[in-house]
């Protein structure tokens, strides 16, 4: 796990390093494996249970890989007020099993919804047509 060692080295001496480490692991491997948890725990002198507890608390970290492309659709109040719920049904249908659909609560684009994020890219003023094109391209 040389990439993991690089990540741990890069955060050496950082106060409260666990979340920055987990973010880098999630980004590099797409998930935080049991093996990674074991190595991180040993390195930070924490129990595996503690590290596991942190991984399971936060929505951003996955325990298992999922290589599918993903779309994060906002379903918080402001986007609800602009039609995100009806769009969500459409998104699930279009995504099928090929694309992972995740619910996110707020992208901070609350006056131009419905909104979605794909990778780090934001998309606003979504309607059925626009979202279909986005999913098609994934």
């Amino acid at each position: 796990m040389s990439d993991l060692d690089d990540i741990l080295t890069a955060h050496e001496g950082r106060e409260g390093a666990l979340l920055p480490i987990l973010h880098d692991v999630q980004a590099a491997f797409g998930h935080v494996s049991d093996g990674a948890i074991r190595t991180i725990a040993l390195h930070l002198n924490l129990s595996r249970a503690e590290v596991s507890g942190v991984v399971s608390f936060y929505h951003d970290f996955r325990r298992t890989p999922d290589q599918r492309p993903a779309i994060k659709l906002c379903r918080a109040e402001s986007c609800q007020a602009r039609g995100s719920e009806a769009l969500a049904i459409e998104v699930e249908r279009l995504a099928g099993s090929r694309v992972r659909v995740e619910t996110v609560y707020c992208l901070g684009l609350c006056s131009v919804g419905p909104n979605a994020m794909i990778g780090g890219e934001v998309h606003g003023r979504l309607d059925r047509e626009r979202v279909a094109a986005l999913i098609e391209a994934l």
Partner: protein
Amino acid sequence: MQVRISDDAVAVACGADAVAARFAALGHEVVRTSTWGMHWLEPLVDIDGRGYGPVSPADVDAILDGRGERLAIGIVAKHPFITAQTRLTFARAGKTRPLSLEDYAATNGWAGLERARELGPVATIAEVTGSGLRGRGGAGFPAGIKWTTVAQAPGRRKYIVCNADEGDSGTFADRMVMEGDPFMLIEGMAIAGLAVGADKGFIYIRSEYPHAIAKVEAAARLCAHLVAPFEVEVRVGAGAYICGEETSLLNSLEGKRGEVRAKPPLPAHEGLFGCPTVVNNVLTLAAVPFVLAEGAQAYANYGMGRSRGTMPIQLAGNVKHGGLFETAFGITLGELVEKIGGGTHSGRPIRAVQVGGPLGAYFPSALFDTPFDYEAFAAVDGLIGHGGITVFDDRVDMAKQARFAFEFCAAESCGKCTPCRIGSVRGRETLDKLIAGENTLSNIALVADLCETMKFGSLCALGGFTPYPVMSAITHFPEDFAPRTAEAAE
């Protein structure tokens, strides 16, 4: 020709990058700026101060050929949405390049820090106290008192923590500051550090704001030499709404589960890594440079009652003119959503307005004369929170909104206290029964009782304030909770 287009996430989400690319391809100089905060006009194109919006790539040629009148909005700075505001914190919005030290210095940037350095810690805190600045995250606690507590706390190591976990739906002011005027935030933190004796600051930014993270990290690198010995480090959240609660945020920074801590001890005494810590919202810290540069009275002159200064109000949801409206406390809710917001985006009547995010009350039009003021909103069982206003039209189903309040609480609960962890689930289940028309009166009484338990028994505002959206929905929109069958009600 120079063309100014914003690179704020709202502009980008609406296609600004493609518009910028088209102008560049035609040989024009494109300057990316912060957004003016008039979201319905984004992508907004500013040529010599005259604006066009919303612009799509197909409109570019027409604008350049002088055929852009359909999209013309005149001189942007003179737009009624802008001239009606009092922009103290958002003074630079739309005008400067976010990462240009040159633009920042030319617009009175660093004047606050300079004055703080001249005044020293005690006089700096006196300015903040005198301004009446209250925490803009939602709690509204006087910033000067918090800073005084940290300054006087024993301990060699102290921290400034900026809460940039802006998770409330209907809010984006923090994101706009971070993307549009990041040096101002860092300057505010440096002033705070000087005032209380902290030379390290953390900015905890939610992971759902990738553009803000990139901008603030870049800004921190660019101005490091100007704020030294104060040092700023960006930390990224991991998708947990509860980490917007200050003690949960501190635990997250420490690498733990985002569990809420009991208070006392206050973070001001025992905060990050057990050290005295100032935890302040982005807007609170962003207001500080103005207070130091112009003096406490300049800020305190605005407002009403005990709500001094300006509030950056965010108009969101099903609203026609959404965006950032900074104004003195005192303006009414009705004026905000009807006059300035222009009513709904859909054109249908406004039915409900949620103020203060997911934990805020739903207001009916009967309460539109409520002035924006901490105490006035509390008096009608509402709250200002972080200043977000979400507009709903007459298609809203308030029983579904009440159910969502419980569902959201259940999804985001840290799990530590029983009223929130269990109450949210039971509340959602009971709303399901209400929506199905079962035992309406007794289930409403049960929900009210549950809400009382959550309000007074929860460890923090997540469980504690979920009753606000739920009970306001039931109180102001009872017709949505009546049995949905053909049978007569009890």
